[in-house]
């Protein structure tokens, strides 16, 4: 029996898609082991986020708001999650492996003494639940066992569809927990405001690489392309390192992992570390002027062309 506590991620009073993907994973696990799913919503506007999650089949949604929890900080959030583990009796804690989950979940594992499965892509095993996870930039798939009485699991969101609503209404329970920041504090945030879909959630992603020469050219090509296709913009590490675009656009082993319905790789060579972040996309299109570029080995459609000519032509004809 599993009692699963899913840590919700939310923004501006609404759950992020990754929360629904974690719920999807939790349902699969509960389907295997029996048991119940609970949600934890921590931080500003927790109550309104909880209300929006009430139809997803969770037994209880715990909300924790208050001083010291407005902005995420590792120590107070770890304290709150361990408090909620006690309140719910959870023996499995789940969140997706974005930077929030990557930062928080190992601390929860340390606090509980449970093992942590990082970046789980699927469940495996017969009588016993085992977990699949990629290693070596996705070049190897490992099957692992967690030997502790409880488990902490970060889920690779791109491998799980968003859970559908099931109807019914979860009990929503506000919990008072004090948060000790232990001398750490939030100083500031520098984000890019964008009307475009979130890179991790978009159905279409257009990604640009070093071949786009500089920042001005990068956006001169990628912005209209993203507009025309309703896409999010991604980038290779080389494009980010060269200062063409912000770091949160990086797709790959050490950036974001995406699996949209349609992925365009524009002037990206296709290094294994880049492929690690996009090769599970349903349809991959590569535009590269080098016919030998490795990206063509994983693309469904390859076009050998100069991006500065091909992309404007494509936009004009879509």
């Amino acid at each position, binding site marked *: 029996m599993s009692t699963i506590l899913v840590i919700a991620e939310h923004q501006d009073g609404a759950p992020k898609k990754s929360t629904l993907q974690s719920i999807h994973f939790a349902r699969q696990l509960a389907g295997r082991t029996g048991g119940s799913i609970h949600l934890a919503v921590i931080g500003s506007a927790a109550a309104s986020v909880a209300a929006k999650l009430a139809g997803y089949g969770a037994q209880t949604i715990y909300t924790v708001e208050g001083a010291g929890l407005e902005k995420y900080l590792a120590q107070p959030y770890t304290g709150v999650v361990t408090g909620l583990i006690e309140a719910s009796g959870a023996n499995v804690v789940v969140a997706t492996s974005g930077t929030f989950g990557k930062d928080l979940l190992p601390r929860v594992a340390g606090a509980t003494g449970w093992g942590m499965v990082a970046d789980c892509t699927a469940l495996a095993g017969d009588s016993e639940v085992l977990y699949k996870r990629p290693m*070596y930039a996705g070049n190897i798939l490992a*099957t692992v066992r967690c030997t502790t009485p409880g488990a902490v699991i970060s889920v690779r969101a791109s491998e799980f569809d968003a859970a559908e609503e099931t109807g019914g209404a979860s009990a929503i329970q506000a919990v008072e927990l004090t948060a000790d920041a232990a001398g750490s504090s939030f100083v500031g945030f520098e984000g890019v405001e964008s009307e475009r879909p979130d890179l991790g959630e978009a159905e279409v992603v257009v990604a640009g690489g070093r071949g786009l020469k500089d920042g001005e050219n990068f956006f001169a090509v990628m912005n209209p392309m993203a507009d025309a296709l309703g896409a999010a913009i991604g980038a290779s590490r080389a494009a980010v390192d060269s200062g063409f675009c912000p770091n949160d656009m990086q797709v790959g082993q050490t950036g974001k992992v995406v699996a949209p319905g*349609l992925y365009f790789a524009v002037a990206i060579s296709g290094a294994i570390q880049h492929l690690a972040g996009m090769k599970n996309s349903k349809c991959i299109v590569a535009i590269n002027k080098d016919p030998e570029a490795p990206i063509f080995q994983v693309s469904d459609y390859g076009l050998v062309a100069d991006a500065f000519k091909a992309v404007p032509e494509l936009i004009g004809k879509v």
Partner: protein
Amino acid sequence: MKILVAIKRVIDPDARIRLNADSSGVEEESVEYKVNPFCENAIEEALVLQGAHGGEVVLVTVGPEDVTQTIRSGLAMGADRAIRIEGVDTELDSDLVARILHKVVERESPNVILLGKQAVDGDNNQVGQLLAQYMGASQACFASEVVLEGEQAKVTREVDGGLETISIPLPAVITADLRLNEPRYASLPGIMKAKRKPIDVLTLDELGVTDTALKIEVLSLELPPERQAGSMVESVDDLLDKLKNEARVL
């Protein structure tokens, strides 16, 4: 100022990874090893902080005797000394590494502990956070800028939506992202000097780590399904036609 840097040796990230004959592990015959790229960023940052604030840079790694070469390349960058804890990769998981490092932290009492954000073999991204939890200390993971201000560190972190800055009290754990800095190359004199720098070797017993049970056991490895290369198209028109009528994604 004492800075402890945890480093790991990994198979060259640009090499092709192969499974061994019985798929129990990856092929280690005739592979090249390197310092995990993120650990190089961690060493570089330690040296920059040492340059600005003085003090000592100590490297620590958990691994078998042949990681000594990796340690020397870290020392050649400019670190002062190193500690190697006897251990074998297959008998370690992130949690055990973190508990071992915690013992080292207790012995050395560093002000700053730097790690890579992830080891590019296991891709776990856990050890720094676990260590911070065991120390009861603050953490700043995925750092792209570190500024020491008295007893606090101001760290900018690469997070999903952009760049976040937090302030944390020392001693603290900081994990390096790739854009933190550009790791220096070892100079020839640096390489010569590294040969004489001390490397202490300790066993788990000597450190006082008695519980060596793994929390995560790797049972088997496989290659993921290969993605089939599709077709080349001749023109933008051809591409749009295929996307609309064949793949039906437009």
